[in-house]
């Protein structure tokens, strides 16, 4: 079985983002970029399935600028076999799903594992959209995955607790935080990753129209919340909550 894992280059999760003063977006110049953390979990899961002998090949795909090659190399260092970069910037989730669909069909893929959301636009859409376009089953927010014969059983983190669903293969899985703990790539594997195959294609090569549907009119900082007061005792706290804030 062949698996595709999409990986997105985003501002590193440790960076405190800065909204541009002119309100056109978030400043990404000279900011540390990394692989979206949920995608890292997706790569790890795919590589584990390969190590368990259930998957033959793992292909890491990124849609982004030329620098997204680094993100793909990171996936290759974790253990993905080869990479494909779709060289297009600012592509919306629906168009990303269309690009992935084209690659899934071209590469005869039977399973796509994606991060549940990217930590930049927080859309949480691509996996579900890809499943719809392919007419496949989907299991979002996975915390446990069992790949069987012609089916995949997935435990999902839902609002009330956990839910288990069984999907026919081929299928789509999106990862939640507790699915696994991604490994650190070892130096030899980082070196090996540099020699792995990485192809670049364009949306036009794949016959996909990626024109945006949305226009961002402005981006602003949320209203700031000022620090309040420190209280000295439990008595003072309860008094403030009762008589000043009136919330208990």
């Amino acid at each position, binding site marked *: 079985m062949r698996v595709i894992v999409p990986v997105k280059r985003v501002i590193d999760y440790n960076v405190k983002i800065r909204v541009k003063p002119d309100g056109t977006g978030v400043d990404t110049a000279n900011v540390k970029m990394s692989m979206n953390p949920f995608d890292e979990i997706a790569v790890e899961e795919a590589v584990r399935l390969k190590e368990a002998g259930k998957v033959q090949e793992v292909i890491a795909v990124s849609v982004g600028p030329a620098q997204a090659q680094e993100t793909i190399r990171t996936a290759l260092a974790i253990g993905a076999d080869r990479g494909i970069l779709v060289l297009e910037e600012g592509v919306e989730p629906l168009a990303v799903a269309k690009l992935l669909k084209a690659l899934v069909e071209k590469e005869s893929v039977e399973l796509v594992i994606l991060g549940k959301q990217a*930590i930049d636009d927080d859309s*949480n*859409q691509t996996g579900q959209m890809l499943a719809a376009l392919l*007419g496949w089953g989907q299991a979002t927010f996975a915390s446990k995955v069992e790949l069987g014969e012609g089916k995949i059983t997935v435990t999902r983190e839902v609002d*009330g607790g956990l839910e288990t669903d069984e999907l026919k293969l081929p299928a789509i899985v999106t990862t939640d935080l507790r699915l696994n703990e991604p490994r650190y790539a070892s130096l030899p594997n980082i070196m090996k990753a540099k020699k792995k195959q990485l192809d670049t294609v364009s949306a036009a090569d794949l016959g996909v129209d990626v024109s945006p*549907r949305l226009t961002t*009119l402005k981006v602003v900082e949320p209203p700031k919340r000022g620090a309040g007061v420190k209280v000295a005792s*439990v008595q003072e706290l309860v008094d403030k909550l009762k008589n000043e*804030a009136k919330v*208990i």
Partner: protein
Amino acid sequence: MGILVIAEHDNQSLKAATRNAVTAATKLGSDITVLVAGNACQAAAEAAAKIPGVTKVLLAEAPELAHGLPENVAPLIAALGQSHEFLIATATSFGKSTMPRVAALLDVQQISEIMSVEGPNTFTRPIYAGNAIATVQTADKVKVLTVRGTAFDAAPADGGSAPIEKIASTGDAGLSRFVGQELSKSERPELTSARRVISGGRGMQNGENFKLLEAVADKIGAAIGASRAAVDAGFVPNDYQVGQTGKIVAPDLYIAVGISGAIQHLAGMKDSKVIVAINKDSEAPIFSVADYGLVGDLFKIMPELAEEIGKA
């Protein structure tokens, strides 16, 4: 061309999240239909019909709709997209799973977790864990939206009397099967709709110590939450998690106990009306958003707090 709100329910009862989506719908127009798709879910449909502002309830009952599997529910919603301009659900795990599937079936770019309606095709939404707010405009004819529940007050539960119309399911896609669920049982209010929330972090040290929070929660009718650190450490189940990737809450009172206040956690609770932080580290970032901070040992403070609140 009206508005279709997708109900969130467990077949027996309608979830409060549905009423947040109805409020968002009222900002867009007055022709508001609620779709209740499930199995043996007449009671949930009747509850939806009572929400003021709802003009019609569509009830689709079939075994394949019983568990809200997106593979079976999304085609039904997409079919109704032919006759509605707006398709709206609250961004719960059901809404997040289902609506993008609907959007793709209709070739629409969904807008996730809207926080306000600025016009018929213009909305604000949080990006970067709520550290920036984007105003976006869509060129799509049909708008598929999820709404951030905390940004829209829940519509009242009673007062309306909309007619209920039965519609057929679009069938079983045969792609997926519900196997089972383990839902956390609790007598306390539900985390995302509770008016008071008390959350514990890594500072709680273990799951047993969450009893200290429960003692206070019982006195003020609060829900219990947790930081990602506490969930990852196995103190409490994953559905307790408040944060960017967990639940977004905005209660009247949020008490953070032994939580340092990582950006990820703040993203999930900083819209609370009053925030209290209890932490032994006076430099903890949580104090920068807290209205009332108390520096000290939570193991000493929490029993005292339970007692002091009880005095009232």
